[in-house]
């Protein structure tokens, strides 16, 4: 997107384009919710990358004397502050370690379905009727299958590895992006600036990626953040059925379902991983809301010159 605007040579008052990194940070700082979200997400990302390396052993160490230990018992080691599970394993390090699988599965599935769905949707929306028909009917086939059933069949035939799980979840979510991208493309392609680009001789690829995609993208990214939560839960459902991630591997979804039998006696088993899922999704939502504003030049001023007294 951004051209490097070198220093203006002919205009004295020409604004020098500010450093994009600094500008992005400033815009983020102005939206405090988005700012906190980003910090939280960075924390999650950090846990996902380094968590297993640092805490793997602690998270799997059983301690039968500490079974279902309640949270907020500050007399114990800090690892047990959020309590312990049915086998006495401390919850806090388990959540941190589980972040890796959870984020990898959810981010992978969302990323692949977003990318593939968007590209196919743009093709279906912009090119010939025949391609549109082929792509849309394929999407119909995927959609007409209950997504969990599809996952069960595929994972029954293949190994239930993390990678396969990502593929299965991605496939079931493709139609969402595909249909949205196609519908928006059909509308945007008729807009006059697209016609203007055609008159200039712009290639199909240029029109799709330079003119249509930037308009469609904010909608898709919003769906993607919502989907993130859906995929996390779908993954836990599959794990619960015994065809997703299997213990001793852990994910947040799996932790929620493992805690389910103890809901009446030890609520914290499901609560903390559930909270992690909620906070992650919420942060992504807030961030996507910020991105929608930041990506739209007509809205960006809201983040650029907010005065001291607001509204």
């Amino acid at each position: 997107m951004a051209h490097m605007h070198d220093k203006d040579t002919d205009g004295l008052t020409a604004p020098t384009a500010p450093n994009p990194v600094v500008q992005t940070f400033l815009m983020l700082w102005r939206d405090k919710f988005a700012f906190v979200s980003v910090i939280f997400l960075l924390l999650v990302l950090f846990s996902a990358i380094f968590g297993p390396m640092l805490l793997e052993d602690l998270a799997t160490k059983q301690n039968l004397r500490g079974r279902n230990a309640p949270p907020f018992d500050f007399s114990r080691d800090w690892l047990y502050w959020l309590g312990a599970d049915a086998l006495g394993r401390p919850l806090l390090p388990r959540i941190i370690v589980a972040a890796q699988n959870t984020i990898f599965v959810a981010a992978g599935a969302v990323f692949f379905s977003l990318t593939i769905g968007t590209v196919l949707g743009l093709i279906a929306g912009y090119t010939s009727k025949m391609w549109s028909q082929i792509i849309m009917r394929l999407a119909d086939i995927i959609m007409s299958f209950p997504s969990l059933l599809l996952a069960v069949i595929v994972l029954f035939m293949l190994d239930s590895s993390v990678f396969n799980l990502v593929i299965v979840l991605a496939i079931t979510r493709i139609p969402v992006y595909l249909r949205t991208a196609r519908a928006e493309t059909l509308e945007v392609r008729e807009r006059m600036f697209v016609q203007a680009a055609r008159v200039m001789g712009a290639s199909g690829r240029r029109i799709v990626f330079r003119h249509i995609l930037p308009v469609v993208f904010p909608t898709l990214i919003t769906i993607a953040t919502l989907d993130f939560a859906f995929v996390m839960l779908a993954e836990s459902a599959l794990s619960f059925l015994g065809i997703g991630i299997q213990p001793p591997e852990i994910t947040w979804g799996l932790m929620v379902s493992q805690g389910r039998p103890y809901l009446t006696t030890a609520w914290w088993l499901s609560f903390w991983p559930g909270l992690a899922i909620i906070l992650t999704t919420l942060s992504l939502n807030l961030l996507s809301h910020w991105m929608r504003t930041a990506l739209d030049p007509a809205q960006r001023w809201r983040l650029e010159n907010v005065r001291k007294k607001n509204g």
Partner: protein
Amino acid sequence: MGDRLLEVRNLSVDFHTSQGTVHAVRDVSWHLDRGETLAILGESGSGKSVSASAILNLIDMPPGEITSGEILFENRNLFEMTAEDRRQLNGHRIAMIFQDPLSHLNPVYSVGFQIAETMTAHGVSRAQTRARTIELLKRVGIPDAETKVDAYPHQFSGGQRQRIMIAMALALKPDILIADEPTTALDVTVQAQILALLEELQQETGMGLLLITHDLGVVAEVADRVVVMNSGQIVETGTARDVYHNPTHPYTKKLIAAIPGNGAMATPLDTGIKPILEISGLTKHYAAFVALDQVSLTVLPGESVAIVGESGSGKSTLAKTVLRLEEATSGAALFEGRDLVTMSPKELFHTRRDIQMVFQDPTQSLNPRMTIFDIIAEAFVIHPEILAKPHWKARVSQLLEQVGLKPEHMYRYPHQFSGGQRQRIAIARALALEPKLIVCDEAVSALDVSIQAQVLALLTGLQNELGLSYLFIAHDLPLVRDFAHRVIVMKSGKIVEQGPVQQIFEAPREAYTRNLIAASLSPDPEIQASRRMARHDLQEAAS
């Protein structure tokens, strides 16, 4: 103070935006009597619609705030009434019609239902409404009203939809009808009919008509008195005649001077030169519908050829077919001897440089997510042979200056400019490819009158400087009169008449052309009055 029907006193409305407070109207006072037509005239952003919105309680508060003043309806202050009382007035005693009837009619209900709804909302029984609805539709001139009452909005033409809106507004016999740009979206001949209808209805019912418009022609046609607004303030009031003949305020003078249709007409170019564009027998079918039927025309280098016609005449299809945005069914369009219709994609790509287009609405034709630099420099990205990358910035600066903008504007986004400036940017983008022919599809019709004049002057200047040819598509005849060398009149996909501009305007051969010229409104109330008489006589003779 006498018994005015409606009186606005010292009204000030502010809008609080995060970019500061905007004074939409400041200290505005006017009044409307029974049986009178008052026009509020102003360009976009002048605040002409704000006082009407205040009357109907349509201002969103916040961000809007009425900071001072009062509105008296039959000597009762509207601002002191309860919301429920005001709702009782709206639609019942004070009704409104809007610019674009399509967006104000609900597509999923029949028009009969929607007209009846106004009545049931104010307590008329359902049994009575249907008969009254049919009666109203007949009154506003919808043929076959008994069956059309159950039709849906998309089954009517633009003019008919506006008639339906009028029927809806008149359903409860209001005392005041507010018409906000009621004819702006309509063809000239339809515009004349709608205005005539409004006038007739006013004489019948004795209601006060408040007309909000930017068009001096509309003012001349129907208004008794006129209020001229500029940047939120009233600059001049008086009878339509006085204001036109003896404007006192410099703004009004400027506005009247900017009206097209009074300048010298261009003399035709020497036909001896080889034409740059030669269209012969161009035809375009959409399934069974014939949009273009055997159209043939030529454009000379350095010539402006105007194509005029009402909506549906095929003029925009012609532009799109020439630019290969649509594929022609048959016929040829020779550009410098090569046929655009059968050209290979590769050849077409190179020819794109020579033929550019300026679209009607610059708000839509500029990508809102690109900076001005990116928009203009896209030409060089697509056609890298024009200019090497290090020179882009200098060239974009130069182009911006050429169209009357400043180089430092290049890092801004389209929404930071006014409509006229955006159209200049669109022109700069077209010029970036160094074209020989520019197709202007209603390129100035979305702009204010004074801006129109500026943009047209810019186009003419560029023509003299660069030897450009224009294919200028328009529905506004006075505009064409000042600008074009030759005029082509189209109707239902066919060329009705073509000739030098002087011949078309002074000695039109075809009845259709004569009608079109007669229907376009002159800003002079006297000329308009005499035209109205002539039209009336014509109808008498016909019946």
